[in-house]
Structures are given as C-alpha cells and as structure tokens.
C-alpha cells in the first residue's frame, strides 16, 4: 500500500490504534481530541462515545483487564473527570494494554483552562509519551502499547492542540494486526485494591517506574540533534519543532518518553554544552524534575508559561527577552450561529434578569453580547450544583433569580448527578434547571451521545435515553418541554412561574442544532 501520506496527529493515532489491533476505543468528545475515535471508527475499529471520561476510562480498564487493548481519548480537563480510576489502575496495572490520550489545549483555543496534564503522569505514576508531530503520534502510540504489554502499565499519551490538528507527512509503517481475544485469569491479589494489596502494588509501581527510567536512559525514545556546544536545548512536544526553526544551530535533546525522564542522559547532555535551556510549553515540568536531580538547566521566563509557544516566542526565550510581546490584532470572537436555538433561550434569561449558572458547550457563548446571559461557568456538569449553592446563600429575592443552564450532552456527562443533589438537598426557594437540548454535542463537532438514539457512527441505532423520564425518576416535580424559538412568549411566562414557586423544576428547551440537523440528513442519505 501507499503508506506515505499527509495526516493529522489525531488521524495517525487512530491508524496506530487500528494497526495495534485495539479492541475498543472509548472517550468523550473534547477539542482537540475528538477526531481520534471518529477516525478509528472510519478505519473499521470499534469506537464508542461514553457519557463521560470516567466511564470511558473504566470501560477501557475492563477491556485491558480482560486481556484486550483499549485506547481512551479525552481533552485535558476530561482527565480530571477520569482521574479517580487513573490513580488506582496505575497501582494494579492491566493484563492487556491501556493507552490514555490526553489532548491538552495550551492557549485555550477551546477550553476553560490551560492545565498541563504532564503533571498527571507524575502524580499518578504512569509512563508518558509526548509526540512532536504526526509521525511520532503514530510511532509512540505503537510504542505505548508495547510498553504497556511489558510492564502491565497504563500509558499516558500526552498531546497538545498543534500536535493533534497539524497535518504532517508521515509513513504508516505497520500492517494492521487483529484484535486479541479476551481471556480472564483470576488474580484478585493484583487487581483488588484493598489496602493490603494496594500497599504492595504501590511499591511495585515505583519499582516499575524505576525500571522504565533505566530503559528510557538507553535512548530508544530520545532524539539528539548535534549542534553548537554553546547552546543546548531540552525540548519536548511541539516546542521541539519550534526550537528547530528558532535555533537551527543549537544542540537539542528531545525525550519522547517524558515520564519517567531519562535524567542521567540529560545530565550528560547538559554537561556537554555551555548553556542549557529547557524549552517546554506550559508548566516548567521538565525543568523542575531536572533541577530536583541537581542538573544546571535554565527555565523559560515566567511570561512564557502562558499560552502556546511559537517560533517567535522560542527565539525570545533563548534570547532571554522579557520585554512585552506585541499584542495580536484581535479577530472576530466566536458567537452563537444565526438560527441557533439557544439564542431565544438566552434572550429570555437576559430579559428576566436571571443569574445564570452556565455550563460547558456552545451555549457558554451566551456570555457574549447581545445576550450577556451567563454569570458563572466552571466545568462540565457544574451548572446545576453551583446554582444550588448560589440559591442556598443568596437573599431570597436574588436566590429566585438563579437558573442553571446545561446542554443535553453535558447533562448526560455529569449533570444527572447534579439533579440528584438538587432533589436530595433542595434550596428553600426550590430551583430552576434549563436543559438546552439541541440533540447533539455541538461544540466539539456534532457527536452523538446517550440522548440522540444513535451510536458514534451517526447511523447505528442506540437506546435513546430520555432526559424527562430520568428527571422524573430522580424526583423533579415540574418538567416542561418547550421550543423556545417557536414559543418564546410562553417560555418567558413559564420561566416566571417556575422562578416564583418553591419547587424543583426542569425546563427542557428542545430544538435541534441547525448544523447537526443538516448533517443528520446527510448521514441518513449515506453521504
């Protein structure tokens, strides 16, 4: 086959997963990770959207514990949701292979924070690979599964926006292998993390990490670029590519496996050059590890912790330039699409002077003028519970203005738990929750979810979960379904009425996303 092609990092990861015979790909959509599972599905792999990242990782753990291979994909903040299983599966390990893809968003092109998930590799004690381009996305996914086999360890594949979405020329070097057949061997001493077992497992984990470091020191995952003895640079991820442009004369040490770091190899490198600078996007993670090891390396100035790096910024880092950077000319900010069903909902919330606890999705753009109808937004699913908290502390007149607004995909992700909290611990004034149900995961590219009635491929039917029945089962008293565009005045009336009552009320503002509607017609026609 013609295996040299132009592809994004996300596409290459999907191809590698397919070529490794991954039994199941699971995840929750999130920029910049979303395309991996779509592509894995397109190649013929078994890919599924889970309701949230924790569920995805746990399903992935089950597959790997049963001797299979799984890949679990999410954006950086998704790993916060999946952190609970991560920290303990690091102890017990898995019989098969489990690779967790964390796609970070430095610069926050489409995220609420720019946390650096390399910290998770250190905190949980899992090995981590950081590709710098499409080829390495492919190669390191394969390397990650090989490492997982040898150490029975989950492996973190840490990406950033530019690695996920940049297209580069790469070679798909491996032929596809068939997925493994699962098999179960009882080993509760290794797999049931009661304290007596976990104490042993933690020691084993630290010993394994030490062994992995010894292996990493040999250089199988390291690229050293010979250059000037005056300037040495240690760079990982996309920063390495910027360094090649910014300082073509420099000696470069690029670790591909960045946890556990090949500290001794880096010590020799640093000793071989006069000046040694760590160029890494985000937090000074490598810098801190190297300083703890007593290696004399230079950190980037603090101002470059913020946002993405690029060639110009790397030049400034190497020049020690901390003068103010030229401000970019502001572009046109994103906004709710013309014809978006959320528009009328936010107009009403604005007109009724509501205090809006919002959530994560397209509708977070309700914060923008002309709506200016969002007052707080934290993380996936937080709208309902933050609204409950606000109602519990504000004076009654203000408490009655509080509304929680959440999207349909976000509702299934982690909003359901909020409804449970609301019914169990209701504020004295009750509460009003609005689910903006546009029947898709719009922001990340119109993915399916448990409420759409279709599987990841947009075609295969799935059980369609009902928001209204779920809410009724949990015990929400008033449940209304309304099209806020077609019945705008009735929506305002209903909202006024619910805000005045002391009940827990749910209003489902249901009207499909105009973009998703057009797409679903195409899918139905098989286009």
């Amino acid at each position: 086959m013609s295996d040299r092609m132009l592809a994004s990092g996300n596409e290459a990861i999907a191809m590698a997963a397919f070529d490794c015979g991954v039994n199941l790909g699971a995840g929750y959509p999130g920029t910049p990770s979303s395309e991996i599972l779509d592509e894995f599905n397109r190649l013929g792999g078994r890919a599924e959207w889970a309701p949230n990242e924790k569920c995805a990782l746990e399903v992935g753990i089950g597959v790997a514990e049963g001797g299979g291979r799984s890949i679990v994909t999410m954006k950086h903040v998704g790993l916060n949701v999946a952190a609970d299983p991560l920290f303990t599966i690091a102890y017990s390990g898995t019989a098969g292979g489990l690779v967790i893809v964390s796609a970070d968003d430095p610069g926050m092109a489409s995220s609420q924070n720019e946390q650096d998930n390399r910290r998770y590799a250190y905190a949980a004690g899992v090995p981590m690979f950081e590709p710098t381009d499409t080829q390495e996305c492919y190669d390191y996914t394969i390397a990650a599964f090989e490492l997982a086999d040898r150490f029975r360890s989950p492996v973190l594949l840490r990406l950033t926006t530019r690695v996920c979405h940049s297209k580069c020329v790469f070679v798909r070097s491996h032929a596809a292998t068939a997925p493994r057949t699962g098999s179960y061997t009882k080993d509760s001493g290794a797999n049931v993390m009661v304290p007596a077992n976990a104490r042993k497992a933690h020691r084993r984990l630290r010993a394994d990490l030490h062994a992995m470091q010894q292996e990493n020191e040999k250089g199988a995952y390291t690229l050293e670029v010979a250059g000037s003895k005056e300037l040495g640079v240690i760079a990982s991820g996309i920063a390495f590519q910027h360094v090649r442009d910014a300082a073509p004369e420099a000696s470069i040490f690029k670790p591909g496996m960045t946890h556990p770091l090949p500290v001794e190899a880096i010590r020799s490198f640093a000793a071989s050059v006069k000046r040694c600078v760590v160029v890494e996007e985000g937090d000074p993670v490598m810098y801190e590890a190297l300083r703890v090891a007593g290696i004399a390396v230079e950190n980037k100035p603090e101002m470059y912790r913020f946002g993405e790096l690029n060639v110009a910024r790397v030049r400034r880092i190497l020049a020690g330039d901390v003068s103010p950077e030229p401000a970019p000319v502001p572009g046109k900010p994103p906004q709710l699409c013309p014809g978006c069903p959320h528009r009328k909902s936010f107009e009403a919330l604005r007109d009724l002077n509501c205090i809006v606890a919002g959530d994560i999705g397209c509708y977070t753009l309700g914060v923008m003028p002309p709506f200016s109808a969002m007052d707080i937004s934290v993380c996936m699913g937080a709208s309902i519970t933050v609204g409950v908290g606000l109602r519990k502390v504000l004076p009654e007149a203000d408490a009655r203005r509080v509304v929680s607004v959440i999207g349909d995909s976000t509702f299934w992700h982690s909003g359901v738990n909020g409804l449970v909290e609301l019914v169990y611990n209701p504020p004295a004034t009750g509460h009003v929750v609005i689910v903006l149900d546009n029947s898709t995961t719009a922001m990340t590219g119109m993915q399916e979810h448990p409420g759409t009635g279709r599987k990841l491929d947009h075609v295969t039917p799935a059980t369609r979960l009902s928001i209204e029945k779920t809410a009724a089962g949990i015990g929400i008293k008033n449940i209304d379904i309304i099209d806020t565009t077609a019945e705008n005045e009735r929506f305002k009336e209903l909202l006024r009425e619910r805000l005045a009552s002391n009940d827990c009320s749910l209003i489902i503002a249901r009207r499909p996303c105009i973009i998703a509607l057009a797409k679903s017609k195409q899918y139905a026609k098989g286009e």
Partner: protein
Amino acid sequence: MNTTNIIVAGLGGQGVLKVTDILAEVLFRAGYDVKKSEVHGMSQRGGSVSSEVRFGENVASPMVPAGECDLLAVLDISQLEVVLGNVRKDGAVVTPDDVPTDKLAHPKALNTMILGAMAAKLPQVKDEALWIEVVGEAFPEKLRDLNIEMFKVGFASQQR
C-alpha cells in the same frame, strides 16, 4: 531550500480549512515536505479562522513564524488587518477584491476561486492538472465541476 509560508484567513463557515487542506495535499503530491496548522472548536463558531501551510525540503514548526508569511489570502476583507502583520515585506496578498467575484457560481465557492488565485502565485507547483485533480477530490460529485470551474476562474484572473 527555504521553507515557504502560507496563511489563509476568513470567518467560520467560509471554507478556510478546505483551502489549506487542498493546498497541503497538492504540495505534498508535488514532492514537498508539508505541514499544515489550524485550530478547531469554539474559535470556529462564526469567529475568525486562520490556517497555515508551510512547505519546503524539511519543515519543522507547523506554525508560520511571525512576519515570515510569503503568501496570504483572506476570504473576508475584515480579516486582512488581523493577519496582515504576519506578511513579509515582499509577500503576496490575495483578497476577494483580487478575483472576479461577479463570476461566482455560488457564494460559498469563494474559497476555491481564491485558491485558484493563490495557485497562480505559487510557481513551485506549475502542474495545473495536479491542482484540478486535488480540487476535484475535495468535493462531492454534485459540487465538483462548479468548484473546479471557480478554481480555473480564480487562476485565470491572475494571468496577465
């Protein structure tokens, strides 16, 4: 050989990424090392969108270094001031004012007309058949001929 830098900018929904996808594929098939960069997600909801293509013998960063763009195209004139600062002194710029928009068969095909004008400014790929092949592959059948036609109109508009 030095790396050549291209930026295409516009607004969400105008087909900016389609232009750079085609550009990158043509340059790849013409034998160059190519990297293409873009940003997805929230920034695409009707807001400014820009995408970058770099090609040459051996491309490192996928992002065009500030002030080093050789060829800039904007699909909406409002975006010119946002990205113009990235262009070299002797760099080329293509805007909708440079192409015969009165000949647009469909307003959404502005991107392929601008692409045609860009192709005329890229002497590195002289093979017009290659351009047309890749443009054709980029669209479903019912839109194929129209987009190839618009590409040709854009290309011809730069021939003097």
